[in-house]
């Protein structure tokens, strides 16, 4: 199986304190890997490393079969759709502008942009009338879904999703799950999904990573992990949450 992201012995510190060290992890291509873990254990940091927004302090990192390039980072990043935690929409752009900015910069024809935006809005259950609003005029869940649209706009081969459904109600979320699965097959994307919802992880991901503070506790195919948890605490978590 092809690999999409590989970390070998990676470490990252802030202000001299290690967030994690010796993290080794391989994400398979065209599969979704879910990361579940304690708040503050470094999940967001991990996504930022893969995207190249923060740099690795230790170890080797390869993304899309190459180390993170020294030059041409913008082009590299456009192949990675990143839905940031908490939406992170540009307040000075309308919803439409937030979503289609990158496509315009890529020079997509107008019709292609329109179709893609319409499609994404439908998938996310967003009213197309929201397109002309500014982010501050949206509810939290609407903002989060706009952020998702923005991440997926360029049809990137790799998606980094940081708690992307946390502010969305269960019914809408269920719909999006369905669309997401279809999308994954059609567009054959690889995805890395950070979530606190174990049911969501099991539902969407073929692979599952349990992260503890500063290290990886367990990593494997979802079914395997669920059946044989590596530790008591993981077992308890699986029992209470599923």
């Amino acid at each position, binding site marked *: 199986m092809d690999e999409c992201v590989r970390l070998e012995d990676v470490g990252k510190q802030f202000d001299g304190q290690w967030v994690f060290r010796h993290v080794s992890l391989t994400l398979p291509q065209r599969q979704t890997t879910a990361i579940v873990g304690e708040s503050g254990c470094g999940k967001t940091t991990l996504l930022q490393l893969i995207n190249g*927004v923060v740099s690795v302090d230790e170890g080797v990192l390869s993304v899309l079969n190459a180390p993170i390039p020294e030059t041409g980072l*913008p082009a590299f*990043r456009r192949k990675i759709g990143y839905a940031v935690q908490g939406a992170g929409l*540009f*307040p000075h752009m309308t919803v439409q502008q937030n979503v289609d900015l990158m496509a315009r910069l890529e020079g997509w024809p107008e019709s292609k942009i329109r179709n893609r935006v319409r499609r994404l809005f439908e998938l996310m259950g967003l009213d197309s009338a929201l397109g002309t609003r500014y982010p501050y005029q949206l509810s939290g869940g609407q903002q989060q879904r706009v952020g998702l649209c*923005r991440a997926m706009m360029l049809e990137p081969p790799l998606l980094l999703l940081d708690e992307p459904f946390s502010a969305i109600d269960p019914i809408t979320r269920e719909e999006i799950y369905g669309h997401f699965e279809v999308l994954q097959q059609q567009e054959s994307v690889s995805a890395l999904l950070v979530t606190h919802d174990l049911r969501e992880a099991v539902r969407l991901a073929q692979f599952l990573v349990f992260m503890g503070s500063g290290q990886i506790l367990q990593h494997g195919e979802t079914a395997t992990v669920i059946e044989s948890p590596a530790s008591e605490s993981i077992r308890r978590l699986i029992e209470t949450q599923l």
Partner: protein
Amino acid sequence: MKRLVVTLALFGWLPLNAGEPIVVASKNFTESYLLGEIIAQRLEQAGMEVDRRFGLGGTLICFEALLAGEIDVYVEYSGTLERTILKLGQRTSILELNERLLSRGLSLLSPLGFNNTYAIAVRKEVAEEFSLERISQLTDYRDLRVVVSHEFLEREDGWPGMRRVYGFDWIPEGIEHGLAYQAMADGSIDITDAYSTDGELQRYDLTVLADDKAFFPTYLAMPLIRDDLSPRAQAAIEDLAGTLDDSSMASLNASVVFEGADFASAATNHLRSIGFDVADGRSNTFDDLIRNTQRHLWLTAIALLTATVVGIVLALAVFQVTWISNAVLYVAGLLQTIPSIALLALMIPIFGIGMLPAVVALFLYSLLPIVRNSVTALVTVDPVLRRVGKAMGLTRYDELRYVYVPLAMPAILAGVRTAAVISIGTATLAAFIGAGGLGDPIVTGLALNDTSLILQGAIPAAVLAIATELMFEGIERVLVPRHLKVLEQPR
């Protein structure tokens, strides 16, 4: 930039060729003002538009301004051209002067008629009594009381030379020039030296003796023009050739100095007397006002636009490296501490006079508020959004364009607005270096203590400031992202 120039020209701000007014200048003494005004009125009567730039500070400033194309015409004297400007030997023919000027793109028109040189003046009674008409006759009348100015007594082109040429063997006493006329008037002196167009010659009723041995250098007054001046304008000025002899120039001078006539009406009277049907007076205050305001607007607009572009680009280029942006701000700050008059004075050796140095000075003053506000605003853009921009794959340029600049826009515009208002204020000082604008009436008004003249500058400047504010409000409405304008007032 080309498009900008054309646009501005359409609004009548830029002196492009089409319909561009003819710039008539003068030096800063009475006769020169009068000659400038006569030419200006003649051109206006011939249907052309005129921009008056009177009272420039001296021969060299006029000449340089003409060379630089800042002005189109002023009246110069042949002797001054010969000695002071072209530094030639004496008695250079007008043809030769013209040749040399032609090679520099200038051209002399025909002399206006009078020759403003030294003259020997005799009390009228005395002249009549002895039928004195020519200087050479003086050898026969030794007992006339000749008293000349100290300067004349010593200059080589004064008494010493004259004595040799005319063969006088006595040395007269010296006197203060200003006093000589009065001494003539009360009869204590019979003969003295004078300038041939002094108004006093008329006032004290003096007779000027002919320089029959052609000793005195000639200072013929001639319109000096740029040779790209339109043939129509040249012809109109040429019509004035020979219309002003020494005595009519002297009486024109006298009418201003002793009778308190203003330049404009004196010029009008003269032009009518020689058959030009010019309109009444001049003093179309409203036209002045419009022209000054346009010039002011143009000065500040150019300076501000350049400063805005340079300032923002500079800020974008340096804001990410603290020490460089500090250095830029220090330099901009140092420029700001140079007092405006000193800065304008410093500009003269580099940029000459006129609009260019004024625009440069205004540009330098406008930089600081723009650069500082831009740098501050760019540096304080929300780090989260900066990171998001990177993460999306924006290039350096697109980050600036789509994230930094729009988010920093309100503060950048605030800097530009401050700079605009400061420029409008400082531009009034540009009048000092002949750049015109609303400073013209203010500076003249301050000198003459004429409040209405001051207000002619101050009120339009104030209106301009308000108009600028309104314009920027419009710009802000377009450029500032809507979410920043939500000033909703939750209770």
